[in-house]
């Protein structure tokens, strides 16, 4: 990354030098050295007696490397390139450490820590099952989360608007929001027909309180001048709430939504571990109960990927809706 700062600092250099500097900035990076190290350590003898399925790791790494080179060539913003390359470097680093600790030096218990090749192999074997579980889990999250947004945001707008004049709503929502949603699970099981609906209910509650209090505090912090300039335009109550107060408090609402999203992921797995027959939480719980830690790790990795993917989309939406902020 030092190379990049050099290229920016000296814009007056000759064109061919500039092209060269640009080339180096794009392609000469630590990440490719890590890729080489990852391949080289495969030459060390395995300490593990069972099959380590090393070819899966190699193919995976080659795939990632090709993808990295393509992205390096296409990506425009230096900051995005740095971010991407750093993530890839982290993956390589993790794989190197993992391979060394398991297959090569066997310092960890193989039953609890299978080598990465095994995990990749298991992933491919279970691919169909995993996809089904991902859809099941994401479906529950989306359903509970969106339901919570649809209820909490308008309610927060109304309560916040009345709370500007002073009301108990703030304290009530703080009180209810402080109760960890996991304690609602038994009540959900008692009251709701299916385990799936219990999961949705738990996600709903986990999202509902942070979004509600985020919206309320957003509304209460809208500047009086903004409200005055809407008032002098003679807006009606509906327009005031949804065309003025809502966008003006959007940033705070997003803080609540972010909190809700994080809690949702944590709770999803917990919720699915109770009685569910599908979903990533079920997958992890089921196989760890049977002592199949290869599959447990596959499940954990998939959960991580799903979280990163959803957060990425969420950030995109947030950036787009707040594009007017500088």
């Amino acid at each position: 990354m030092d190379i990049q700062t050099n290229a920016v600092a000296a814009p007056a250099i000759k064109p061919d030098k500039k092209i060269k500097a640009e080339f180096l900035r794009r392609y000469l990076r630590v990440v490719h050295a890590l890729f080489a190290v990852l391949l080289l350590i495969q030459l060390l003898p395995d300490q593990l007696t069972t099959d380590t399925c090393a070819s899966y790791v190699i193919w995976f790494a080659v795939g990632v490397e090709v993808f990295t080179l393509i992205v390096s060539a296409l990506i425009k913003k230096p900051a995005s390139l740095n971010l991407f390359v750093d993530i890839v470097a982290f993956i390589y680093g993790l794989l190197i450490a993992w391979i060394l600790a398991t297959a090569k030096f066997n310092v960890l218990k193989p039953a609890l820590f299978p080598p990465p090749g095994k995990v990749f192999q298991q992933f491919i074997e279970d691919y169909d099952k995993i996809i089904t579980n991902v859809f099941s889990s994401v479906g529950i999250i989306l359903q509970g989360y969106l339901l919570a947004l649809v209820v909490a945001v308008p309610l927060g707008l109304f309560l916040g608007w009345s709370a500007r004049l002073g009301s108990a709503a703030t304290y009530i929502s703080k009180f209810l929001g402080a109760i960890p949603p996991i304690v609602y699970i038994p009540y959900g099981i008692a009251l709701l027909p299916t385990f799936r609906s219990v999961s949705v209910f738990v996600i709903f509650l986990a999202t509902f309180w942070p979004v509600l209090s985020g919206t309320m505090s957003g509304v209460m912090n809208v500047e009086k001048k903004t409200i005055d300039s809407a008032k002098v335009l003679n807006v009606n109550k509906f327009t005031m709430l949804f065309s003025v107060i809502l966008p003006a408090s959007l940033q705070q609402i997003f803080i609540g939504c972010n909190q809700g999203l994080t809690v949702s992921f944590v709770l999803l797995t917990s919720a699915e571990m109770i009685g569910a027959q599908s979903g990533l939480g079920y997958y992890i719980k089921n196989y760890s109960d049977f002592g199949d830690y290869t599959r447990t790790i596959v499940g954990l990795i998939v959960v991580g990927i799903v979280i990163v993917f959803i957060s990425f989309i969420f950030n995109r939406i947030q950036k787009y809706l707040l594009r007017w902020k500088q």
Partner: protein
Amino acid sequence: MSKIEIRNLTVDYTEKKKSFTALKNVSFSIEEGEFVSVIGSSGCGKSTLLSILEGINTPTDGEILINGEPVTGTGTDRGVVFQHYSLFPWMTARKNVAFGIKQVNKSAGRAERLKVADEFLEKVGLEDFKNKYPSQLSGGMQQRVAIARALAMDTEILLMDEPFGAIDAKNRTILQELLLKLWEGDGSSARKTVVFVTHDIDEAIFLSDKIVMMTANPGRVYREISVPFDRPRNRKELVQTREYNKFRNELLALFYSDIASKIGGEEVVL
């Protein structure tokens, strides 16, 4: 009947059990099509007065009549430009103007509103910036958009609360000239009634038909002065005339004599 009649307006604020009189028995009237500036040092209640005219504040005593009807709140007969925060930061310039139009003209369709918005943005010279957000515009440009919106809403009355107070000197004169040009129009339609709050004496003279000078503690009307210069006004020519300078000096003398008597000394540093 006057367009706007302000009768015995008194406003008391109570803060931490201390009461404070912002306005005391303020009365004056404004004719239809008249451009009136309200000037005074800070704390004289000129902005409080305007907020009551806008309808976002209520007086403790007295009333304001518009077309003979008492003001009870905000209304579609008045368009407002503030010093800051007139525009909604999440709307582009064009959307801001169109939003204003929508509030006064419910029957206009979206396409029509945008068309009128574009027209008025062109009038204030911002046709190339119509899709920018307020944060992407300079302070002067933001005020142009706010003026475009107030004009596009086509209200009978324009209320302006130090609209150029935060603009640098050069742009302020440009904006004053633009405002005057748009207000004077081409004679095809009647001029709007304008109430313009400012603390800048030159601005008040250049723009107004009448200047209402206020004084503080408690806020009340000190003098009402008619501005004797013909329209359309040309700033460069106007400032060179002896009449202008005489008039300006008289106004300044009035302004400072009031402040001097308040402080109770001759040596007032301003």
